[in-house]
């Protein structure tokens, strides 16, 4: 004989399943709720020789209509007619759990509260005034530890007592005057009708803007006039904020109840995060702190990645080249094959592979910063400065992403709702030093500035940001006038970076770098090698080769910047398909020339550049025309060929102009 049905309702992870298992033991049946894939668990509980049905409803945070789980739970409570509801609340997270309780109270159903996992809460020194809690909720509250079976018997006793209780239930929530008036008005519309749900609750949900209720009313064929009246009501009140008002009333109630009945230990007022943030997000100290952090990153990158590991990688590639050459000569391989493998592959692609340790260290350090939660702080402190240059802080996010690769940096501008912000950010992102430019800087730094490698590297990155900001200001004053839209940035708490995340981040970048060297760059180098050794009638790698002829034609353009040889000129153009190809081409053309003398690329660079021309060359590389992939994505994002063309030309012009200024001023000041 059925003596009553008890429904278990609670948030996910509130211990509801433990509760259900403790009550029903092996006496369970698992199926699906009709028409949906939501699991339905039912069981039997015997108390004083009487059998009760127990229904375990899905774990939910609220009784809206935003998920199948919520709809199933709500419909069951309202139409399945359980005799009593046991609301399981996680004692350690009471406010959040009480939000669901407030919605159960709105339904005016018989309720018993199981304050579950009190042992865990007590360990955290959280105490409860159960009497006060019960008074506010108008329902019995019993502390439980369901997985140990503690309090389960008492809860069932309270639930069974509640089944027989005839006392009417009141909704203790207090809504604001206007909302209350609207609810009452809606109750007037709904009264005297055969509704599937309680009138007051239906009125609340309609005023809250829950369209699922209207749909349900239509389905059960309530009086058409009511549907018309509700639709009429929505026509005039859709812009009102009653949804927020009602939800806020529930939170306010949950908070008030917790405030009166929960005693928590005093929390540390100033946490470590607060202390760190006082410096890192400070209006005046934030940007200098960012500069210091990045300087340390570049110093470590250069010290470990280049000085410590880089020379090992370089000598390994060089050794491999020698062994291969001996082998090829031994097997009497044709001269062109030896030239292709040694000059093209080893000196070209190998010159790029040498920088794998450098890239590895840089991405390990950047991954560490990303995973620690610092990057959000960096973007936050830059927001103010960005605004002064006519941009929004989100542009800095695109720029940070652009440090890895400009393509995703430009793609990330999609989230900007202002076209002006988007266009400016797209046009300045290429000034960010992407990972592909790193090998180029490293060769020149190793050749001329190795004592201050980290500082020079940092200065190049910083100079890129400076040029980007100046260009943003100029573009904002000329082509793209207007105000910037703003956004909200989430500041996550600091966390200790996990090795898995940091290593995965590093590996994704390094493997991408290696893959690119083996595909795109390899292809570019093959083309460059062919152009450098053809026609067969001329000396390979000479200015009479096809590549040499092109380079000789281009060289005068760069002479004012101090690096006007044909090799240096064609290397820059080889960098347009992929930036790393600049090093590959220089490696093939310079180191290839001296291969018999065993001169590696860095030494060759020392012979063809001076510190000043090396600096102007690096600046040209930093600022000039971005790679083809970046231009391609700009074409795609702007849906035009005009903007990539503008970008290609204006960045080239800026790169050339700044490189000339650096060289000419440097020369006038007596630097060489």
């Amino acid at each position: 004989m059925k003596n009553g049905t008890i429904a278990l309702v609670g948030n996910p992870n509130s211990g509801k399943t433990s509760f259900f298992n403790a009550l029903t033991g092996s006496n369970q049946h698992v199926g699906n709720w009709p028409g949906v894939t939501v699991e339905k668990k039912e069981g039997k509980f015997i108390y004083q020789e009487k059998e009760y049905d127990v229904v375990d409803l899905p774990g939910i945070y609220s009784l809206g209509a935003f998920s199948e789980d919520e709809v199933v739970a709500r419909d069951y409570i309202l139409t399945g007619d359980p005799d009593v509801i046991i609301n399981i609340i996680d004692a350690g997270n009471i406010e959040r759990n009480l939000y669901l309780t407030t919605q159960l109270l709105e339904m005016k159903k018989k309720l018993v509260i199981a304050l579950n996992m009190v042992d865990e809460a007590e360990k955290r020194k959280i105490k409860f005034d159960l009497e006060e809690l019960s008074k506010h909720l108008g329902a019995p509250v019993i502390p439980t530890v369901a997985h140990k079976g503690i309090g389960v018997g008492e809860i069932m006793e309270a639930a069974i007592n509640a089944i027989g209780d005839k006392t009417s239930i009141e909704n203790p929530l207090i809504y604001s005057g206007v909302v209350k008036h609207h609810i009452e008005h809606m109750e007037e519309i709904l009264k005297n009708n055969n509704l599937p749900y309680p009138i007051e609750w239906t009125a609340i949900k309609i005023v809250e803007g829950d369209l699922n209720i209207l749909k349900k009313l239509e389905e059960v064929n309530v009086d058409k006039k009511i549907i018309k009246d509700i639709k009429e009501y929505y026509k005039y009140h859709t812009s009102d904020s009653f949804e927020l008002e009602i939800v806020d009333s529930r939170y306010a109630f949950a908070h008030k109840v917790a405030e009166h009945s929960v005693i928590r230990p005093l929390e540390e007022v100033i946490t470590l995060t607060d202390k760190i943030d006082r410096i890192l997000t400070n209006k005046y100290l934030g940007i200098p702190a960012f500069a210091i952090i990045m300087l340390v990153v570049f110093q470590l990158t250069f010290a470990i990645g280049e000085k410590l590991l880089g020379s090992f990688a370089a000598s390994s590639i060089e050794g491999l080249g020698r062994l291969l050459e001996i082998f090829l000569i031994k097997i009497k391989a044709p001269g062109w094959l030896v030239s292709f493998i040694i000059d093209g592959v080893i000196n070209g692609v190998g010159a790029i592979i040498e920088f794998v340790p450098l890239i590895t260290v840089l991405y390990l350090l950047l991954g560490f910063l990303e995973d620690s939660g610092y990057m959000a702080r960096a973007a936050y402190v830059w927001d103010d400065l960005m605004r002064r240059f006519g941009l929004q802080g989100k542009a800095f996010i695109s720029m940070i992403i652009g440090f890895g690769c400009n393509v995703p940096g430009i793609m990330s501008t999609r989230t900007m709702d202002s076209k002006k912000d988007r266009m400016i950010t797209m046009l300045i992102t290429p000034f960010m030093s992407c990972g592909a430019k790193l090998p180029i800087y490293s060769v020149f730094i190793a050749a001329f500035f190795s004592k201050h490698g980290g500082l020079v590297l940092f200065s190049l990155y910083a100079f890129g940001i400076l040029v980007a900001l100046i260009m943003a200001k100029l573009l904002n004053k000329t082509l793209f006038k207007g105000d910037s839209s703003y956004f909200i940035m989430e500041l996550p708490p600091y966390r200790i970076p996990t090795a898995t995340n940091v290593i995965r981040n590093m590996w994704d970048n390094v493997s991408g770098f290696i893959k690119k060297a083996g595909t795109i760059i390899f292809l570019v180098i093959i083309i460059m090698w062919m152009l450098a050794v053809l026609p067969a009638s001329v000396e390979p790698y000479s200015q009479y080769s096809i590549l040499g002829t092109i380079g000789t034609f281009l060289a005068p353009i760069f002479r004012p910047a101090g690096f006007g040889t044909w090799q240096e000129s064609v290397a820059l153009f080889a960098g347009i398909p992929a930036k790393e190809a600049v090093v590959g081409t220089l490696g093939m053309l310079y180191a290839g020339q001296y291969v018999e003398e065993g001169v590696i690329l860095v030494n060759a660079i020392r012979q063809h550049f001076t510190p000043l021309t090396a600096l102007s060359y690096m600046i040209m590389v930093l600022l000039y025309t971005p790679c083809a992939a970046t231009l391609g994505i700009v074409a795609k994002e702007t849906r035009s060929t005009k903007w990539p063309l503008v970008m290609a030309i204006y960045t080239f012009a800026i790169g050339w102009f700044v490189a000339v200024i650096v060289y000419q001023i440097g020369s006038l000041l007596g630097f060489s």
Partner: protein
Amino acid sequence: MLKEILKAIDRDRLLSVPMLSKELRVPEALIDEGIFELLRMGYIIKEETGESCSNVCAGCPFAKTCNKEIIKTYRITEKGQGIIRTV
């Protein structure tokens, strides 16, 4: 509480659960829940800063690094702005 959260994040242009929790004197879990509700009700929207490029450059060597979400950002919708104006 939701109105206060909206007002605070609009004022600071920052969404920090610990900071909001301290300012509004409610537990962090409740702030989390409040933000979830504001998102659900359409007063704020979360923006995707990490763009997936699976359709445009699946063959790109850096495709894996492309759609990383380094920083989470939100925007207050027109509906949310309407509420802020009334607070």
